[in-house]
């Protein structure tokens, strides 16, 4: 990879431009955000104050301010704002000379785009990539006035909204591109911005929006034909079909009904050959809502749904009834297969089960699936250069479907689906014949889970094409498997894999990766194995969550049977394993991502270093169930606090302990990887990588670098000067006031004191000397004390029953 992207200009500070800038900033890139210049300061004095002397750049400055308020939050942390430099097209255009990549995100009008591209061409270094974030305009037309040198380096980079969270980035090459430049930027984006790249042809709406919006449009038709309500369609098109729970209409309300209608009309206008063209005219009721300004979330939450209050003042969400233009209480239809389907966790098995029924719900699912598969096949050549993988990835990463249309088609039985389509008289391209296998190996098979697709079938070209294994993909197992030759050790809960070059990887595979006996057992053995046979250990997995915490069922079971000795030995073992990892003679790197809670978080904390994914929701949240982190988590945060204080002379550790106390005592969870570091959960040896896909690879490289450098295990902590009882009482003083102010319950304060007890090093005199082991003993003692409390037991039971914390 030869590209070095250190400074980027984003031109156009609309909601999309500003969010792209925020994502770049989070990746550590200095980002210029430019927009039209203003002639005078804003009239609103508050805004004028924000803008100050730099009023010429008002648009960009206010767009950056707005990032603080947007939901979902585009900022990993407000600290990254310092990486975004506001400016305007007139005064600051010279900054383009210093940039390594320029992204154009100005208004979607050909004339505006043309003049902006001309300006860019005149003001940049000669060989840097220049890309447009257009979602529909033709690249060739946009750049027709510019020369071949420009065309070499000009292409589309289409981010999906919200760009921080959506994995998809469509790259639309220009026919005259320098292909290496495009590939190099794509590689940089994958590794640094964490995006999944899909190459799309320069056709209307590109790939994901073309297919995704089609799917919504055909839902409208079948909903009408089958007389289904809005909320029924949402019940069918959410989790049931392996799609986000916002399903069809809630998604439309979030996106904006007008935006959605605009995108669909785009197809109607500019794709006259589209065989389903008529479907792209939104139904009349959609036009009615738009005319009335009921555009969804941005119109006071009035759209397909309407937020209202009932007689008791409770918020209720009413659903629109197109037939008589009113909002009514939701009454989703129920279907005979619904309960059965819920019990089937595998998407393909579930869909097969549903398609075996024939009521309106099953019909709806069949017809929309059928049309979307057929449409994808028809457009395969036109929009995706015959690559099923491009369409499947596009729809998975751009619309968060669990599986794309071709994967579904193959896994549901290609021939069966084809026969049923033909029976329905669906038109298909000539190349669609029985026996086609879109992918080798087949989706939903053990082989697929080991390697991913290794070949795809190029529709109109009627041949297989190999798919190179991405360098970063490890395909870590999500259940115990005997098929994987890399497995060194394994039980039901976890496996140790040889991921080559002398590095091992510890993978959890319990439900939600909850830490249980199996995981602890395997880790014990894994540490011994790595000691003798490997250079170091990666702790990570490919699941959606790193680990949701300790297995509460096991703990509650032991409490119920009054087996407190068993709990004691359980905690002892967990602590022991954590200490083994911490003090192992080899380096370890953990890869927190997704949920990293409680015991899972403690696991990640004890590694030598962490590589944290951008979207990481980490926290020591045990107080939510009336417990404290007792797997060394409280101890680790305490040690870090004392360590920070020890950097100065006579520095009081209390402010550092207070920070740790807030994290544990208030069960704070990070909203990003960066925040997990900034709030003090992870220490100075943690780094963020936005590229979730590259996390394991980066961890492995880090292990090799650490091992190469001659890794030294940390020195045991034997002489720790703690704040002791006066510290605990200081926390009690604050807790008492919080109870009196009704901010926390008396039991919260009771648990809070226990947290303080460990952090402060026990009820000893201030300045007493203790060891790390003593803090672990305190953790265990306090944990057991809490286990005996009825209110803790109630909290655990409530969490197991509802998934939510109980405030008792």
């Amino acid at each position, binding site marked *: 990879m030869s590209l070095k992207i250190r400074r980027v200009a984003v031109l156009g500070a609309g909601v999309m431009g500003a969010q792209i800038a925020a994502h770049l900033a989070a990746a550590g890139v200095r980002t210029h955000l430019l927009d039209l210049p203003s002639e005078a300061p804003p009239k609103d004095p508050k805004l004028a104050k924000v803008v100050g002397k730099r009023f010429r750049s008002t648009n960009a400055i206010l767009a950056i301010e707005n990032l603080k308020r947007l939901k979902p939050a585009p900022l990993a942390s407000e600290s990254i704002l310092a990486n975004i430099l506001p400016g305007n097209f007139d005064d600051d255009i010279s900054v383009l000379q210093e940039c390594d990549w320029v992204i154009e995100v100005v208004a979607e009008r050909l004339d505006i785009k043309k003049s902006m591209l001309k300006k860019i061409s005149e003001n940049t270094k000669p060989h840097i990539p220049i890309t447009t974030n257009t979602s529909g305009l033709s690249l060739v037309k946009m750049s027709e006035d510019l020369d071949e040198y420009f065309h070499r380096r000009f292409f589309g980079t289409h981010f999906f909204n919200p760009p921080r969270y959506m994995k998809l980035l469509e790259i639309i090459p220009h026919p005259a591109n320098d292909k290496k430049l495009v590939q190099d930027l794509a590689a940089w984006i994958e590794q640094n911005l964490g995006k999944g790249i899909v190459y799309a042809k320069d056709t209307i709406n590109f790939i994901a929006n073309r297919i995704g919006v089609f799917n919504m449009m055909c839902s409208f038709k079948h909903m009408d034909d089958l007389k289904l309500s809005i909320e029924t369609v949402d019940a069918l098109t959410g989790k049931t079909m392996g799609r986000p729970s916002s399903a069809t209409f809630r998604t439309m309300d979030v996106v904006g009904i007008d935006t959605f209608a605009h995108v669909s009309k785009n197809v109607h206008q500019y794709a006259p050959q589209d065989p389903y063209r008529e479907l792209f005219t939104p139904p009349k009721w959609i036009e009615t809502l738009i005319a009335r300004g009921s555009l969804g979330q941005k119109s006071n939450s009035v759209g397909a749904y309407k937020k209202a209050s009932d007689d008791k003042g409770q918020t209720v969400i009413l659903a629109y009834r197109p037939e008589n233009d009113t909002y009514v209480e939701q009454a989703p239809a129920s279907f005979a297969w619904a309960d059965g389907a819920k019990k089937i966790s595998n998407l393909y098995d579930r869909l097969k089960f549903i398609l075996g029924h024939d009521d309106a719900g099953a019909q709806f699912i069949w017809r929309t699936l059928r049309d979307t598969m057929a449409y994808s096949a028809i457009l395969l050549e036109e929009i995706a250069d015959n690559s099923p993988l491009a369409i499947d990835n596009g729809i998975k990463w751009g619309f968060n479907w669990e599986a794309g249309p071709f994967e579904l088609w193959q896994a549901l039985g290609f021939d069966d689906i084809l026969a049923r389509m033909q029976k329905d008289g669906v038109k298909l391209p000539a190349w669609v014949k029985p026996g086609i296998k879109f992918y080798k190996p087949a989706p939903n098979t053990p082989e697929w889970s080991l390697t991913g697709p290794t070949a795809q079938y190029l529709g109109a070209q009627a041949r297989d094409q190999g798919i190179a294994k991405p360098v970063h993909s490890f395909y870590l197992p999500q259940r115990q498997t005997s098929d994987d030759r890399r497995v060194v050790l394994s039980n039901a809960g976890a496996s140790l894999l040889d991921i080559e070059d002398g590095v091992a990887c510890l993978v959890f595979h319990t439900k939600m990766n909850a830490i249980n006996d199996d995981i602890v057992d395997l880790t014990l053995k894994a540490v011994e194995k790595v000691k003798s046979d490997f250079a170091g250990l990666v702790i990570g997995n490919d699941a959606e969550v790193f680990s949701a915490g300790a297995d509460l069922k096991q703990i509650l079971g032991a409490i119920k049977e009054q087996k407190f000795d068993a709990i004691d030995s359980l905690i002892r073992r967990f602590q022991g394993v954590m200490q083994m990892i911490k003090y192992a003679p080899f380096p370890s790197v953990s890869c927190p991502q997704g949920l990293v809670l409680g015991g899972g978080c403690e696991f990640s904390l004890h590694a030598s270093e962490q590589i944290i994914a951008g979207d990481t929701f980490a926290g020591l949240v045990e107080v939510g169930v009336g417990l404290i982190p007792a797997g060394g988590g409280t101890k680790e945060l305490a040690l870090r606090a004392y360590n920070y204080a020890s950097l100065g002379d006579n520095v009081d550790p209390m402010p550092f302990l207070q920070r740790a106390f807030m994290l544990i005592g208030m069960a704070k969870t990070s909203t990003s990887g960066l925040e997990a570091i900034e709030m003090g959960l992870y220490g100075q040896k943690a780094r963020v990588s936005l590229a979730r896909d590259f996390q394991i690879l980066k961890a492995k490289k880090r292990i090799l670098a650490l091992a190469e450098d001659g890794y030294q295990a940390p020195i045991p902590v034997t002489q720790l000067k703690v704040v002791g009882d006066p510290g605990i*009482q*200081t926390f009690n003083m604050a807790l008492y*006031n919080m109870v009196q*102010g009704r901010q926390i319950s008396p039991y919260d304060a009771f648990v809070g004191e226990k947290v303080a007890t460990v952090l402060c090093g026990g009820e000893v005199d201030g300045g007493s000397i203790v060891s790390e082991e003593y803090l672990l003993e305190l953790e265990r003692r306090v944990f057991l004390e809490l286990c005996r409390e009825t209110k803790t037991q109630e909290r655990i039971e409530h969490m197991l029953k509802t998934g939510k914390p109980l405030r008792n």
Partner: protein
Amino acid sequence: MRTAYIVSPLRSAVGKAFRGSLRSKRPDDLCADVIRAIIKANPSVDPAAIDDVFVGCAMPEAEQGMNVARFAGLLSDLPQSVGGVTVNRFCSSGLQTIAMAAFQVQAGGAECILAGGTESMSLVPMMGHKPVGSRTILKGGREDYYLGMGLTAENVSKDYKVSREDQDRFSFESHQKAAKAIESGLFKEEIVPVPVSFRVPGANGSVQIQEGLFDTDEGPRADTSIEALGGLRAAFKTGGFVTAGNSSQMSDGAAMCMVVSEDFVKRFNLKPMARFVSFAVAGVPPRVMGIGPIEAIPRALRLGGLTLKDLERIELNEAFAAQALAVLRHLDIDPKLVNPTGGAIALGHPLGATGAKLTSTLLHGMKRDRQKYGLVSMCIGTGMGAAGVFEYLS
């Protein structure tokens, strides 16, 4: 017993803590500025004849630690032979020093003492930089000793049935009265303009020094309304009544006066402003600290041989509207006599300085309105009240 007189009760204007004009002014420097103004206002006095400097401070540490009174004296260029002692009775420290000075003069132990208080809440937080809880208190069933001030006001609000509406109205009126007083220039005579300077980063590693003169109280908001105050959320207790709007403001300020004997008056040909009549302190349960004046006011009046009816003007510190109203109602005090130029809700409450600041405001008000007897009253954290009675000498 000898008589103690009050000469030149002066004060700084009160700055808003953290973002106001005194945010970086050291409280020892500020107090020295006020002392210097008092010396200047009495050119006949030989500074070497001053016996001592008593400075009240509620959180005497950091910039106001190290015996801030001694530093204020030295910084004001008093002869080094004049001593200094810092006194802490939390919010009433500034009134306490005046009383202690008066008692010492009355007993013949001194002829002239500079007394008052100074506080920078910008630089030293309430409870200080390192509060430490006591096991004896927290594990001995005495937790309420540590109850936060806002929560004690919630308790008063509940125990004395002071409604949210009444608290907000009281606060609104405080702002109205204070804004009007400032507009009419009523505080001009009592305020010592003090120099302020800010050192801000300039270009090329330079430091820009921005200098100014600070002479007007910053707290009052003429534009606030009952509706705006009513819209504020409870600041201390979920579902409570006490808000940032009906509580006193965090502030910076200093106030001092000269407490002298009759001999001293004659020797230096002074014209005292008032006679110190009496002073009393009383303890109340810490959980309702704001009602302290209910006990202290009658006690101070009794010691002075007066009754409430004799009082023509009262400066009752508005720590919280809830406690101020509870005190007024319980003692059946005519609200018209109280805080005619606004109180701490509008003008601010620089803790240890406030008692002296209110003495200054009281005496100058009595001078304007030709009144005879006046009283300053304070409520005090951990459950105390204090009251001082003065007779204006026309």
